[in-house]
């Protein structure tokens, strides 16, 4: 018995020793050799810039918004969410939820968390960029998680509540106001990690006020008083009216991170083969858009559109025809329809114009027409056209529009007429000058109702033959955030593409 007792004692002693030494080296072993343990705000900010502009452009902008705005068309069913208001397959309407929040939204939140409060400029620029990211999402869906978004890691909030869009707008405008005022040219910046302005604080200030102008104008239909207040505050702060101040994101040819995401998306989904007929998703530029450009003799047509003729991309006006929306079969004339210009739009090195002087000038013109701005509406309208046309030169030599053509077009399109007529002209100009930023075009169309579009009504559509007014919340939210989602639906209306969001009141 003594022996066995000893045996147990020895074992117990050994076990006790083991408990102290049996995890030696484990902590070091559990460190990922291919990752670092802290975020570098500058490098992460770069990612947030890139991701905010590279999210679902093809599905959300080209197919959903661009299709329903009749700038893009497809004869196929599956990509026909905007073209025919079909929803056959895919996750197109959910992309900003599934990739936008875990991408840019979370990244900019990470940057803000990693910054010290003394880094005033970095913090303010990040707040401005966060507003930029969030307003695009709320404009697509309406109520979204905003104040509780992207807190999964910091506070373990896994079921963020949805904020009313009205409150989101109030906060975004407030954020822009505070951040713009806090910017201080004497302090440090993100430097070269800030691809848009490379740390130019003055320009970021103009960007903040321009964004404020955009958001203020967005409320023109639902709350004209507030809209006017914010528009005037923005103008007083100083907005982007010169080409030198525009916010531009630059790209190079390289990996998918480096390439212009719009060019990459259009090429990979439709136009890579460059023969006018092999288009994977059956895409072309739409008839409504091309006709408008042709009817106005708009010189932008020739930098935007081409037709494949004898194996060459031909930009001549006479050849340009847009494909009608709502087709169910590949038309025999498919090859003759216009496509995005490979020398401008489809360049991997093309820039994305995030905020243009053209857009800002159009807001100024609209503000003037509404009596919220003392400047001359016609002058700013003309300046917008000029700025828009000059923007195409950023896409390369094929995008350069001769000054004479610009002047001629400006002369032929002066802003006159009744308020409604002037707003229609402004609406049509948003439609053309902001081409490729389809979300903004869709937002301005919902707000102004211009250009006047005739919806297609193809059997089997899911909107009852009306142009979609929002995208759909994903089923995953129903599955993992049901209570919050239900609150939003109770407030906003059914989760349908026909439901109007807060600022889009009838």
């Amino acid at each position, binding site marked *: 018995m003594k022996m066995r007792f000893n045996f147990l004692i020895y074992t117990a002693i050994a076990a006790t020793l083991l408990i102290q030494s049996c995890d030696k080296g484990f902590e070091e072993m559990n460190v990922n050799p291919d990752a670092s343990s802290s975020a570098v705000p500058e490098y992460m900010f770069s990612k947030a810039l890139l991701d905010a502009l590279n999210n679902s452009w093809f599905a959300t902008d080209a197919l959903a918004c661009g299709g329903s705005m009749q700038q893009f068309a497809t004869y196929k069913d599956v990509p026909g969410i905007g073209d025919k208001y079909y929803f056959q397959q895919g996750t197109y309407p959910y992309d900003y939820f599934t990739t936008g929040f875990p991408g840019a939204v979370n990244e900019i939140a990470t940057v803000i968390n990693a910054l010290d409060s003394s880094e005033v400029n970095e913090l303010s620029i990040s707040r401005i960029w966060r507003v930029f990211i969030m307003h695009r999402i709320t404009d697509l869906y309406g109520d979204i998680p905003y104040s*509780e978004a992207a807190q999964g890691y910091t506070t373990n909030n896994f079921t963020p509540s949805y904020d009313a869009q009205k409150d989101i707008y109030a906060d975004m405008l407030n954020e822009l106001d505070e951040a713009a005022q806090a910017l201080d040219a004497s302090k440090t910046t993100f430097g070269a990690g800030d691809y848009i302005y490379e740390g130019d604080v003055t320009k970021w200030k103009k960007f903040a006020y321009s964004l404020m102008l955009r958001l203020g104008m967005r409320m023109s239909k639902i709350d004209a008083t507030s809209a006017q207040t914010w528009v005037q505050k923005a103008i007083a702060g100083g907005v982007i009216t010169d080409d030198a101040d525009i916010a531009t994101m630059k790209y190079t040819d390289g990996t998918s991170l480096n390439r212009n995401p719009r060019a990459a998306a259009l090429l990979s989904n439709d136009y890579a083969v460059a023969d006018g007929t092999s288009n994977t998703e059956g895409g072309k530029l739409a008839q409504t858009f091309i006709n408008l450009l042709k009817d106005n003799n708009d010189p932008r047509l020739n930098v935007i559109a081409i037709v494949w003729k004898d194996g060459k991309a031909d930009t001549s006006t006479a050849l340009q025809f847009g494909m009608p929306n709502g087709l169910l079969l590949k038309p025999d004339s498919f090859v003759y329809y216009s496509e995005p210009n490979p020398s401008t739009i489809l360049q991997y090195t093309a820039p994305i114009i995030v905020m243009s002087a053209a857009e800002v000038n159009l807001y100024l013109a609209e503000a003037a027409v509404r009596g919220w701005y003392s400047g001359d509406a016609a002058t700013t309208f003309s300046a917008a056209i000029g700025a828009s046309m000059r923007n195409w030169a950023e896409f390369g030599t094929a995008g350069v529009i001769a000054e004479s053509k610009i002047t001629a077009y400006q002369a032929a399109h002066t802003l006159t007429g009744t308020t409604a007529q002037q707003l229609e002209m402004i609406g049509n100009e948003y439609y053309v000058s902001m081409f490729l930023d389809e979300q903004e075009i869709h937002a301005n169309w919902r707000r102004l109702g211009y250009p006047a579009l005739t919806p297609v009504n193809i059997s089997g559509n899911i909107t009852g033959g009306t142009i979609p007014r929002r995208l759909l919340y994903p089923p995953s939210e129903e599955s993992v955030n049901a209570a919050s989602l239900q609150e939003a639906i109770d407030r906003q209306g059914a989760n349908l593409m026909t439901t109007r969001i807060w600022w889009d009141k009838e």
Partner: protein
Amino acid sequence: MNILNQNLILGLLSCALLPGIAAPVSAQTPAMYASMRQTDNIPYHKAGTMSLKDALIRLKKLQNIRFAYREGLLDGKMVPADVVDKAETMEAEAALKLLLSDFALAYSRVNKTQYSIYTRDVNTTILNYNALFADKLKGKITGPDGAPVPGATISVKGNSALVTVANDKGDFELNLKDATLPVVLVVSSIGFDKQEITVNSAADLVSVTLAESNKALSEVVVTALGIKKDKKALAYAVTEVKGSDFTQAREVNVANALTGKIAGVNATSLASGPGGSSRVIIRGNTSLNGDNQPLYVVNGMPIDNTTPGGSPTTGGGGQNVDRGDGIGGINPDDIETISVLKGGTAAALYGSRAANGVILITTKKGRARKGVGVDYNSTFTAETPVVFTDWQYEYGQGDGGVKPSSQSQAVTWGRRSWGAKMDGQNYIAFDGKEHPYSPQKNNIQNFYRTGSTYTNTVAFNGGNEALNFRFSLSNTNSKSIVPNSKFDKKIANLNLNAVLGKKISIEAIAQYNVENATNRSSSGDATGNPNWGVYMIANTVDIRSLDPGYDANGREIQWNETAYASNPYFVVNRFKNNDTKNRFIGQASVKYDILKNLYVKGNISRDFFNYDYVGIIPTGTVYTTGAAGEYSGIRNAVSETNSMLTANYNTKLAGTIGLNVLAGGNSRRYKSNQTAITGTQFIIPFFYSYTNLSTVTTTPTRNNVATNSIFGAVDLDYKSVLFLNFSGREDWFSTLSPQNNHIFYPAVGSSFILSDAVQLPKAISFAKVRASWAQVGGATPDPYILNQSYSMVQGGHEGQPVQTITQSNGANLVTNSNLKPLTSTTYEVGVEAQLLNNRIGFDITYYNKHTTNDIVTTAISTTSGYNNALLNVGKLSNKGIEVLLTGTPVKSKNFTWNVSYNVAYNQSKVEQLAAGLTTLQMATSVGSWAFIHNSVGSPYGVIKGYSAAKNEKGETIYNSATGYEQKSALKNLGNGVPPLTMGFSNTFNYKRLSLDVLVDGKFGNKVFSVMNVYATRFGLHKKTLKGRENGLELSGVDQNGNAYTNTIPVSNLRLYYDNTKNYTDQFIYDGSFVKLRQVVLSYQIPVQKLKIVQSASLSFVARNLLILYKNTDNFDPESSYTNSNAQGFEAFGIPRTRSFGLNLMAKF
């Protein structure tokens, strides 16, 4: 030996395992042992004497030998204590001689560890022998496979003195002595049924073929750590299957052959072709979304069972292939037995990964023999696809009731069977040629080919008592039914055993595998999936008209409107998808017998593989950017290394209580060093190197995981009637936070042999009850998930570095620094019995398994910025009943029929997820039409989806604006995992013929069929016939509750049926089935006259012959294509096959 990692050994030392175990061992000197013996052994009954039986029991434990004797032979015989003491200082035979000397008893040595004891009557034996010149009987004892049964005991019924034992070759000689003919011989051997045979003449050679016993009476089974135990001592259910069960009607992956064989083991083969993985689940899923497959252990040491590159995803496309698992690399010919440890008690000694059960594989060893023995096994099988599709063949290709009138229309409508009534007239098809507008019913047979699998194994064995070996070489060549797809594997296995002197024995095993797969088929979504087009092509198009699938420029010829539905011929002719796995499994162990009843054993093993995969989506693939193709490559080096040290001591307490103590430590290291290369657009067409890509991303994944453990077990045995065992283990995990990284878990079990303890009715030959309770702790297998980390994006942008949040499995994960170990607790009770002279047996088990603190990767709202969170809160329960019934309905001289029926019912329930979470999304189907969830209150893995909304009167609610049915809320549509499984095995033996028939079934699960969704959308499904002539009448109510009627015109029928994809329930099928799984008809070739051949058999083998019962339309209920936890989807896997062939086995 370079496989032994220096660091590892150092790690073990620094972990103080060696002193921990070695200290008590070295303290155990013989002197101490002797002193212990006097104080606490079996007490002497009367002053100075003890029973002979007890003396022999002491000797048995001391010398580790066994005795066989007739019941009652030793009764009433007492031995003086000093004789016993003296005997215990002697060698076994001398001791035995001494103990038996006072009685009329003799012994004979059966083998190294077994002796039989019988009556010795010196006078009569010698007298009779001399006087009567008795006949000498000669004969041979063989097993059912024709192999000799060495050590079989042959005795004369009614005269137990007349006994002999068969030699190594199964031959025996028996002196009949005083018996007179005819005599009845009784032949018995462990593991075989006792057999009686009447011998009339001594002139004949007596040939006896023994049938293998399936009785639990004296069965020795392999249990945890490779320790062999008497089955009756076990407190839990354990099932052992002979390796020979897998070597005739073979599966390329041996785990697939477990289907239907063992109660409670749900083995699923996948629709991913030869070389694919298996999914084996024991007693339900233990973890909400961790790995639920069992731990595979070969000869006591774990092997790796990961699938390189991960399992295919449910909704993936491109090259969504199953690259095979680790168990698929074990050659069934090398397997002696497979033991399945189902419960926690059985597995507790294996630690965390054993919570899902353990599959113990014991490989064959060499045997002492003259010369070299050779075993040869050759199997050839042919596989043909089974066609389940039953499409409509009334209306042909087209849309809106119209057939194509031009080539471009035929292409747009390539997958639409919404055309006119078939009329047999010519029409323009997608190739621009005229084809008759007639049914094409043989597209599946025409596209797939007859597959074949050719397996050859040759094994050599030999040696002597001191050193023996077994060496095998195996080659498997498998040609898939998918054209240009094949798989081959070559396995070499060497097993060496050596006894070095009296105290040290060593064993070493080395195995090398080379596995090559060519063009494994994709499944899931349409891109790059050859199966998709074969099934979905319009019903008047001959699939062969798509051949070869590419034009003169190598560009894929598009056969339908979307580039994403690949041309099947293009995929099989041009896609490349090749992988090579070089695998080495090495094991070495040294056992040192410090005393007769105390040994220490050191084991070290490493399973290492190097994996190289290259997938080419070629130039010309129309769905890729610019039709310029894509590249993916995986290079991976994985190792699983275990070092273990154990000490084992056994003795007797108070003469009647057997005690066995085991203590040990284990150190596990897992390393995976993977580089994944993905890229797009080959710059120079058709030049498939990753140096030739427009964009390339290289992703390194270096995982490093360690677990250190100490464990111990105590087994008590009271008179072989009552057994008690206790075990405990403590694990330290590298993947958890240092504050919470270890857990201790105990187990206790008991078994009671009722039939030995009390007098039971005569009909009951054997009865046992057992009960056990056990915990197993576990941790996350993934490292680096305690804290969020940040990765650089290679190359940056515009000359500036870019940083991103490190993703886990392609998604943002909320890491958790507070993770602690999870616990799985199981209790089980069971009863087993043999009735009517072992003609009927049953074994019933009830178990209840709870998993708490389960580490769960939970899908969370993406608006949190993260896709998943890692939580430590899951609770999951599994309870169930397993029943095994065995019997021998017919038993006569030439004919026996044995049956074995097993059935298991497992009820799983998700008890708890994180606070505020009621459901956990595990997987999404193609198209997001159905989901697999773990929902609180529901069984594990339910299928969720939508249906068309109905009002309280049951009327369908339509949206009057769109004309479509309104979609219901997301709801539960059934179990993805079958709760009820069964297998029914029959073996018939008639003289030299035997027939083995296995029928198995699974019941109670549902399957969501992606193929039927598409078949409905494209007008192939028979239900789409409704409305083809005059439109489809719909009636119900609108969203405001008003009566609603609508007629969908023929022109819009396609879009109406297309929209039915939103109503998941229309594509949910009952997955229950009964299959005729296996038939083996064997003939033992008479080879006695051929000196060179010992035995040979030829068999007709067949697997998956017939489905006897199913409820699915157009697909096999067993159509899962991933071995992940997401079960319950069908989506265009490779068609299931039926296989037939021949098997030849010979021993030389």
